[in-house]
């Protein structure tokens, strides 16, 4: 399982990466393989204020629908529109072109509370 070390993780299998002051959010390689072929992403509204741990998006595969939890609190300032036409990007490139949305964080320190790559790898091994 691919677990890049340049970002943080939630135990619910989202990743969060600080980029130009914004927190970019997506799901991990493990999550996308568990979900199967992604068919649709229900994105949060732009401008919506979210709390860390709040369910803000839904990713659908044929047989499941999974809630996506905001890793940090803040405002949704961007969503990945490309996923509307090409939801398969979440499967193909979950850490790159498959990003979901971006949050303008209230408190960037919240990222510290998330798992680092090593801790997330341990979690995956335990879940095994």
């Amino acid at each position, binding site marked *: 399982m691919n677990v890049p070390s340049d970002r943080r993780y939630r135990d619910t299998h989202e990743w969060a990466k600080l980029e130009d002051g914004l927190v970019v959010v997506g799901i991990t390689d493990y999550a996308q393989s568990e979900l199967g*072929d992604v*068919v*649709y992403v229900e994105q949060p509204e732009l401008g919506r204020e979210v709390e860390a741990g709040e369910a803000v998006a839904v990713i*659908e595969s*044929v*047989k499941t629908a999974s809630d996506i939890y905001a890793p940090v609190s803040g405002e949704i300032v961007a969503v990945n529109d490309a996923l509307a036409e090409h*939801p*398969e990007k979440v499967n193909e490139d979950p850490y790159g072109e498959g990003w979901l949305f971006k949050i303008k964080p209230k408190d960037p320190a919240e990222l510290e509370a998330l798992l680092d790559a090593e801790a997330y790898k341990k979690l995956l091994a335990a879940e095994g």
Partner: protein
Amino acid sequence: MSYCWPEGDFPLIFERAKEGRRGTRPPRVEADPEALFGPELLREAPPRLPEVSELEVVRHYTNLSRRQIGVNTTFYPLGSCTMKYNPRALEAAAARFSDLHPYQDPASFQGALALMYALGEYLKAITGMDAITLQPAAGAHGELTGMLVIRAYHKDRGELDQRRVVLVPDSAHGSNPATASMAGFEVREVPSDADGEVDLEALKRELGEHVAAIMLTNPNTLGLFERRILSLTEAAHAAGVQLYYDGANLNAIMGWVRPGDMGFDVVHLNLHKTFATPHGGGGPGAGPVGVKAHLAPYLPVPLVEKEGDRYRLDFDRPKSIGRVRSFFGNFGVLVRAYVYIRMLGLEGLKRAAALSVLNARYLKEKLKEKGFSVPFDGPTMHEFVAQPPAGLKALDLAKALLDKGFHPPTIYFPLIVKEALMIEPTETESKETLEAFAEALGEIAARGQEDPDWLAGAPYTTPVGRLDEVKANRKPVLTYPFD
């Protein structure tokens, strides 16, 4: 067991159409639409309905039906659906009542009201409940009705604001939590224990003044009777919690035990499962709801009341939750269920239940002989959940069963069993059918282990093979692309 499949690409009705072709003629009246409505209100472009001859319609649907399996063609052991034989006598009976309008003077449909009243009495007797509504159109509709009744009860007692939570087992049918949400509650799941029954201690820990109701089915979706049900309902009542019974699995116990006696306050029935009315490809059903006396005031209006030998519709129920649908209920379905009960009588219902259990237990043993495991292997009632031999997937086995001429069981439910095959044979299947089914599954499993590619490519003899569901969901096409 074989069925005919016309070959080739099957046309859509729209593709059979030819401009100007006419089919069945309705009665006509010479009139000028503009004179009646003025030009502004008239439709500009006609709807693109098919222009085909009556014979083409007959061929289209007749041949479509030959691309479909049903209980009438095939063993259909879907778990918790009770796919028993739908006696044709029920259809003959329902036809006698088609021409009644619900807004006629009730004095002119006393026979229909008598039937509804009698059916209500029978269902109350079978379930051990005090009052009943025949209004809901399906099981889930009954669930919603029942939960709204519970909601009204708590509200009337000033406790609704605190009682926001509904408990459901983790093995519950998805409609239960969906219903609880529609009724304005939050849902909390309660785990099952190692025996597959509700973890009573875990449940007791969840009980409290913040809980409105518990939704259960008994036997549960693993086909096991909740043996501690009396303790469970007692504990719930002590906490002021109401008990809801999902009647989807009543076929196992009808006549032998009653949900009312188990302590349930609300019960819904699925007439299109337990009482043999046809499933219709997805309805119509009927989901009558029975309640204990303390909940009767909240039932939807109207109820059917009897005064002497006259029947009337009672709308004067001030505490009622109102209506959950128009008119009185799926009357045509009620007629069918009535006839079924009249044909079987109590002994017939009990025997049907017992044979449904006998069939399930017998089939379970046959499948275990073929290497299938049954993780919750207690005293099986009308259905059981099996797992394929290691490495095989429920989906693949299901597809291969189609080639053997069987409808597969329910797959991937309940969620607490991996690669679940939820099997409910029902009482109307013969010993030979059960044995043939077990043989077939055994053969498929054996061959599948030797030749996984073969298994992954099934089915081979159906009109279409495995369909691209990802495509269907990524780029949904839900209407005919005319342009």
